[in-house]
Each structure stands twice: as structure tokens, then as C-alpha cells.
């Protein structure tokens, strides 16, 4: 039986179908999870997808964090279940205190949908092991509250423990220390602002001539091949 990757749908979630498509694209079994259902249905890993859960009212991710499914997920993540929070999912992970820091409004105050280049700084997590260390990947961002912030001590800790997962080559939003994604100490919980699920094929991904070089449009795939391999080998 292939590894099963669950994708949570909150009201206002937008990127759930694409996360399911990415899971299927690498040969995993995609499983839809519903916010009101505490049961994780024996999935082997979970993606918290992007969108505007509960309209991002109050604060991005602040309401979703209290969904029934999150009660179970928080415990499971602490127990080692691999969890990838993308964009709004990253915000939910921060609100749930599974990851440090917070996301605030982009530096120019606008929504930004752009194909950005990130450098993978940590390829030792369950979600990034298929990248070469220091690999550069062109992956789209699409958010308005995408600017990662944390206090200096937390940032220093993240750096010292090698928990900065990915950094922007050209910081689009004023994120502290160019941080695009981080991981927890165990490496099973990962938060990422860019959307690797939208960089899985040449047809719909960021392909072509971007930032002075030719890109294939598939630079996000290793997030999904990584988790599949780590689940198979586990």
C-alpha cells in the first residue's frame, strides 16, 4: 500500500486540491481530511494547505488552529507525524505553536504572486531530503501575510540549530533573515511560505525563462518525493 498523505480542508482553504494532486503525482495515496473531523484516518503524513482559512479573519490561521482536526494533529505532530504547512498552513502551524514565529503583512502591504527562487538550507528533514544541500528552487509565492518574523533570540536559535529550511535569494516581503521556511527540531514539522505544490509540472508550474535562467517548472516536486521516500524507508 502506498504511503497515504492527508490534506486538511478548512472553510476558506484554497490549495487543498492542488496538494492532493501533488501527492498523487509522486505516487502517494491522497486522503481528504475535514476540519470538523478529529480522525486523521491513519494517514502517514499531513499537508496543511494554503488559502484563507476562516477568511484569515482575526489573524491568518488563528481560527483554524482551534478546529477539531487540529487537536488530533497537534498531538500527532508532537509524536512525530510528518506535517507540511504551506502558506496558510504555515500560519496555522505557528498559531498552534508547533513552529516558532509569526507571519505579518508583506513589506509593501500588497498580495504578491511571484515565482521566487529559494535556497534549500536544510535537506535533512522528512520533506526536503530529496534536495541537494544548497539547491536553488523556483517556486511561486502567493500571499499577503507572508512576512516571517520572530524575536532575535528565536531567529538566532533557528539559525544555530540549522532549522532555517529555505531562504529567498531576493527577499520579496521583508521576511526576517530572508526566511521562506523553517522546521521544528525533530525535522518532521515544516512550514513554508512558497507553494511547492504549484511547481510540479512544466505545463502549469513556473517554467520558462525566469530570473535570467531557464527553469523546468518542477522545482517543488522534491518536497513530495522526499516525504514519500522517508515514509517508505521508515
Amino acid at each position, binding site marked *: 500500500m502506498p504511503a497515504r498523505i492527508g490534506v486538511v480542508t478548512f472553510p476558506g482553504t484554497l490549495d487543498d486540491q492542488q496538494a492532493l494532486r501533488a501527492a498523487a503525482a509522486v505516487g502517494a495515496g491522497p486522503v481528504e481530511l475535514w476540519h470538523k473531523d478529529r480522525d486523521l484516518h491513519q494517514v502517514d503524513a499531513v499537508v496543511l494547505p494554503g488559502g*484563507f482559512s476562516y477568511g484569515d479573519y482575526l489573524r491568518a490561521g488563528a481560527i483554524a488552529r482551534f478546529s477539531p482536526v487540529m487537536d488530533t494533529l497537534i498531538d500527532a505532530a508532537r509524536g512525530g507525524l510528518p506535517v507540511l504547512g504551506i502558506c496558510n498552513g504555515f500560519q496555522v502551524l505557528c498559531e498552534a505553536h508547533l513552529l516558532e514565529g509569526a507571519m505579518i503583512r508583506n513589506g509593501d502591504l500588497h498580495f504578491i504572486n511571484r515565482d521566487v527562487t529559494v535556497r534549500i538550507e536544510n535537506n535533512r528533514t522528512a520533506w526536503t531530503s530529496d534536495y541537494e544541500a544548497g539547491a536553488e528552487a523556483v517556486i511561486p509565492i502567493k500571499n*499577503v501575510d507572508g512576512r516571517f518574523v520572530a524575536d532575535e533570540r528565536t531567529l538566532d536559535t533557528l539559525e544555530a540549530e540549522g532549522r532555517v529550511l529555505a531562504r529567498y535569494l531576493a527577499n520579496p516581503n521583508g521576511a526576517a533573515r530572508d526566511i521562506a521556511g523553517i522546521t521544528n527540531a525533530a525535522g518532521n514539522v515544516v512550514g513554508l511560505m512558497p507553494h511547492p505544490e504549484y511547481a510540479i509540472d512544466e505545463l502549469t508550474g513556473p517554467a520558462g*525563462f525566469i530570473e535570467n535562467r531557464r527553469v523546468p517548472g518542477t522545482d517543488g516536486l522534491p518536497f513530495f518525493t522526499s516525504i514519500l521516500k522517508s515514509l517508505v524507508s521508515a
Partner: protein
Amino acid sequence: MSTGHVSDQPFDTTSVFEDTAAAFDTVAKAATTPEVKQPYRELGMTEDEYLRVREILGRRPSSSELAMYSVMWSEHCSYKSSRVHLKQFGEKAPKTAALLVGPGENAGVVDVGEGLAVTFKVESHNHPSYVEPYQGAATGVGGIVRDILTMGARPIAVMDPLRFGPADAPDTARVLPGVVAGVGGYGNCLGVPNIGGEIVFDPCYLGNPLVNALCVGVMRADEIKLAKAPGPGNQVILFGARTGGDGIGGASVLASATFDEDGPAKRPSVQVGDPFMEKVLIECCLEIFAADLVVGIQDLGAAGLTCSTTELAAAGTGGMDVRLDAAPLRDSTLTPEEVLMSESQERMMAVVEPAKVEAFLAVCEKWDVTATALGEVTDTGRLRMWWHGEVIVDVPPRTLAHEGPVYNRPFARPQWQDALQADVPTAARLRRPEGADELRETLLKLVGSPNLADKTWALEQYDHRVQGNTVLGHGEDSGMVRLDAALPGTSLGVALSTDGNGRFAKLDPYAGAQLALAEAYRNVAATGARPLAVTDCLNFGSPEDPDVMWQFAEACRGLADACLELGTPVTGGNVSFYNQTGEVNIHPTPVVGVLGVIDDVDRRTRGAFEREGEILLLLGDTRDEFGGSEWAHEVHGHLGGLPPRLDLHREKVLGEVLIAGSRDGMLSAAHDLSDGGLAQAVVESCLRGGHGARLVLPETDADGNALDPFVALFSESAGRAVVAVPRSEELRFTDMCVARGLPVARVGVVDGTVLSGEAVLSGEAVLEVQGQFTVPLTELRAAHEGPFRKLFGHSVVDA
């Protein structure tokens, strides 16, 4: 019937209500108090229209009925000035089996094959967007998305053709950033990708920006939903957001009667959107459709509950009983008139068989959507409404929905039209650039002018990737999405382009409308898709001005004639009149959207020049045509002469060649030629592909006359495109053009690094116009991509 009491005096409210039991007007009261003065003028009705309502009802209308007639018979809802001209779109419609639902429904539907149907429509939200740019634009997106949803389709893309005053005008700095943020703020939160549109500047839009919004949706062809309420006993269910006091507009004339002096202030007349609610509503509706739980459905847009109840009832068994006071309210002080007129967003109305009500409510419960049974379908032929036990409305619904006034407004060719057309921008009239340096300077100026400059600053505020089916987005000739949402795994896709040129239409509205259609048609074909159907947003000035009415009549005639010739029927659209600042009307601005279908999205043609050594071919004829051109506008502030001449047969042939070239894998890139001519197209394709080009300009025009470099570079002759073909395909492709009678000329090659000239030292990619000038790509990029961000990048928006 006594009508002697009708006057334009303000409504004396005290005399109506003071000695009656209920604090609101009822049908019973209306029957016994014919003398009451009613504020029909304040509600925008003429005396004749008011008298007709009295004649229909055989009494004076209750104030709720008056509110309903005033809004349903408004220009916006009734198309009373435009209807006689819009008829042509049906009468002259080309015969096509693809058309499943034509004009009149919420949106037209076309068959795209593989059992799928696509529905699409463009609408305007011009006036609200001037008053409140963010919410005006946001609710414009929300409204058109609900129209598409109402047809039973999943919304899969939006596009926004926008027009503003001069780019450097202070008010544009207020309006544009707000509109862009509103389009993005709403659409992004809905999860519907924004895949194209336009941003155009002209002084005529300074006090009246045009904010048009297009949406496209996909469904299985056998699952089309219609706005109708058949079957007596079926339940009428209102679901979605609660009804609030926003967007009431004119109804405040009636509502003010109930405001005491310390009461709430008048509410905003622009609606306020909640995209999160709409996203939930979309998923809720799609689940309801999938389970086949409705027999009819209608969204609540303009005229809110008034429109939805009358249109559903009029298209169904003919009657409906509604308990209006059962509608969930955000504000318990709303009067029945206000509830009827409210344009609160994110509301839908469904007609549900009694046996399915429980299942319907269960889906709403799953999505936490409020749903309330308001009433039921009847066969009485009357739409009746109750408010706290009293009948406040009792009308024949067809008289509201379909039998409103129709006007044959007078129109006449404006006296100034001849002089305008005679002012041809010849070389003698407008000074043209001479010599290499001036040509180079002109190119840099034009590619950085507000209309031609790169709009990334605005466009990257829109999510174009969500749903994962966007094959072509902003910057391409047309947007393209795969139809995977309705048929997983399919390679079938649709392409969409919207175009419009107010300057061309001002010079000649008949030709201007046709040129807009031709450009959108060409753009769709350039990406490899076969143009199938048309939607239009007709933005004009005051219909009461015979000049404007002539422009409108000519534009409709032109568009209908061209649609017939190109074989693409108009499936629906929108008319927006009264676009004016004071007495000054905007340029007539028909915006035309063309939808095309492509069997295999892998075959789409992009616009970027990406492969060194490929051959550049110019398709079509170039003439000395600068009337209404970007060059005349930007360099001289001139508008005169005639727009480029149009040959619809040629457009069709060009389209066929572009589609065949894509299908047979002969084309690496294609880009249509329009605003800014060959120069603009080549610059865009070079920058997108990160490659230079060496251009060899053609030396003669279609008639064998000498073609000077200025005309070759900047003329806006229609029916043209530039394509890049691999050397191995050049002969096959040119043979095909020749066989079909399409002029084709080799105009250069795609370059990697420069082979000659001053930039050789740096090894930098350049655009070289042979024998004229050379510009490094870095300089082009700065000129093209810098200005827009500089103009608007510092604006701060309330969002």
C-alpha cells in the same frame, strides 16, 4: 384611474402612516389611499413609468412594490434603452451547435466537447468603483463569479479589463491601487485564478473609471442550472450571507421615512464584500448541484431579493409566495423596502422540491451556511410577499422581469464626427521621428508609456496559479486554463482574451467594436485555441444624448455583423450607460471577450522568444495607419482620422494559420500585433523569453509602396501577428500561409548574444533593428518594467 395626485413634491410620509395600524405600507392601504404622493422621481422613474405601474396594478403601488418596479425598470436591470439594439446579437447570431444557452440567462453556455460545457460573462462595476475603489472592484468580482456559479458551474478563472484616467493624475493614484487591491483581495480569497485583463489609461476615464470583470466556469453539459421556479409547492430557500443595509442606494428615499432623528445614519450605497463567505458558498452550491438538490437557482446581485424572486417566479410556474420577514437580517431595523432593495453580497436563492429540503439544509449545515425557507412556488401568476402578517406585495412577476419599458432613444451621427475623422495623422499633420536615434528614442518612450508599460506591479497582486490549471496567465496573448476541475485528467482547455479600444471606437464606433472583437479573436487564436463565442461589456455615456446613442447603435451593429462573419455568437454580456463626468461622456468603449477551445493544452503557443536562431515571421499586411494609435496618443496627444481598416476574412485566415501552426507543432512563439505595433510585440516577446532579436524591417507595404521604418515599427494595422518558427519548420509554415493567401514576411531571427554593434563587448542580449539601432535588453527591461511600479508602487491602500 385618478392620477391627479401625482406630483414631484417630496413624499409626505406622515400623511401616509400616522393613522394606520402597521408602521409600513401594505397592499390593503395602497388600495384605499390612491391619493398618496409617491417618490417615484427620487427612485429614478418617469411619470409615464409610474402611471404604467398604477395601470398594471389597478391601484397605486405599495411602497415595497414601488421600490421593486423602480429598480427592476431601471436602466441597469431592464436594459430599456439598449434592448432594441441588443436584439441584433440574437437575430444575426451565427448558427452554431456549440451554443447551449444564449443571452438572457445569468450567463451564456457553450459546448466545448468531451461532455463539458463552459459558461462565461463579463460585467461592469464602474460607478461603485469610482466611489469606493476597493469594495466596488471586489464586489464586481464577487457578482460575476456568482452569475457563473448560478449556471451550475465551478468558477475556474476571472479576468479584469480596467480603464482609468491619466496615469499621473492624483485621482488615478486613489482609484487604481484600490481597484487592483479589491480585485485581488476578493478573487484571491475565493481561490479563482485571475488569468488576464487589461489596464488602460485615457483622460476620458478620469471621473469615471471602467471596472469590468469576467468570469468563466466549467460543468458537465448535462448539469446546466437555470434561473426558474417551476412546480407549485416547491420551497424557495434563501441561503448565504444575511441581508444588511449595504447597497440600498435609491431605496433610502423610502427608508428615510422610518429613520428617527437619532436613528442610524444612512448606510453606504456601495456594497461591502465578504469573499470568505462567497468561497464557502461556492463549495456549498457545488455540493448541492452535484447531489441534484435544486430545480432552479438564482444569485442575488443588482436589486437583490427583488430581482431574484421576480426572475425566478417569472421564468417558472408563474407565482411565488414569500414571507419577507423571515429573511435573516444583519440589522433588525431594516424596513421591507430596504430588505427588497438591499444588494448585500454572497446571497443565493434556490427552488427545492419539498422532499429534498432536508438534504439541501444538511449541505448548508456542513458548510456553516445560513439557509432559510422564505416561501414557495405557486400557480397563482402572482408574486406575493408578507411582512409580519400583512401583504405588502401582490404583483404579476412578468411585468417586473420581462415587461418593463422599452425605449427607442433618438440617435444621430454627431456633428463633430466628420471633422474628427478628417483629422488624419499624416506625416504632414504630426511630426514623425526621423533617423535611427529618434526611432530608438520613440521605441523606448512607447514601451514605457502607461498603456504599453509592463503591469506586473498590479498583476502580481492577483493569484493566477490557484486551482493548478492555469496554463497561460498574464502577459500572454490570452489566458488559458485546463478544464480538469470538471473532468479530471483531461487535456481540454479554454483560452480567453478581452480587448477594447475606446479611441478606435470614438473615431468609428462600428469599426471600433469590430476591431475589439478582432483583436480578442486574434489573441485567442495566437495561443492555439479555436475562437468559439463572445461576451461583451458595452461601456458608454448617457443614452439620453443622441450622439452617445448613435455610438451605441453603431457599436452593436458592428459587433453583431462581425460576430456573424467570424462565426462566434454573443452569448451574453452587460451594458453600462451613464459613464460620464459632468456632461462629458467617456469614449465609447465596447470591451469584447472571446472564448476559445483547445483540445490539448500541451499544444498551447506562448509569446516568449526563447530559442536562439529561430526565424521571425510577420503575418499580415502593414499600412500607414496611425489613427487612434498609441503613438499618436502618447507622443502627440492626438486623436483623429480613422482606425485601422479591418478585413474580417483576413482575421479568420490568420486565426486558422495560427491554430494550425500550434496544432502541427510548427510554432515556438506567437504574439498578435496591436497597440504599439511590431515594435511593442517584439519587445514583449524578447523580454519574456530573455532573448534578443535581430529585426530586418520589410521595405514595402501590401500595395507595393515603400514602407518607412517608422511605419513598419509602430503602425497598428489590424490582422497581423509575429511568430517564431524553428528553421526546420519555416518552409512548411510559409507554404501554408501562401496556400491560404496570408501575406508572410521574414523579419528577423531570435538572438542569444549580440553579434555586432557596441554591446558586443559585454556579450549582452540586444534587440537590433538592422540598419537602424540597437538596444540592450537590460535597457529595454528598465524602460518597460520600471514606469508602472514607479507610478503606483508607493501608493498606500486601505485593504
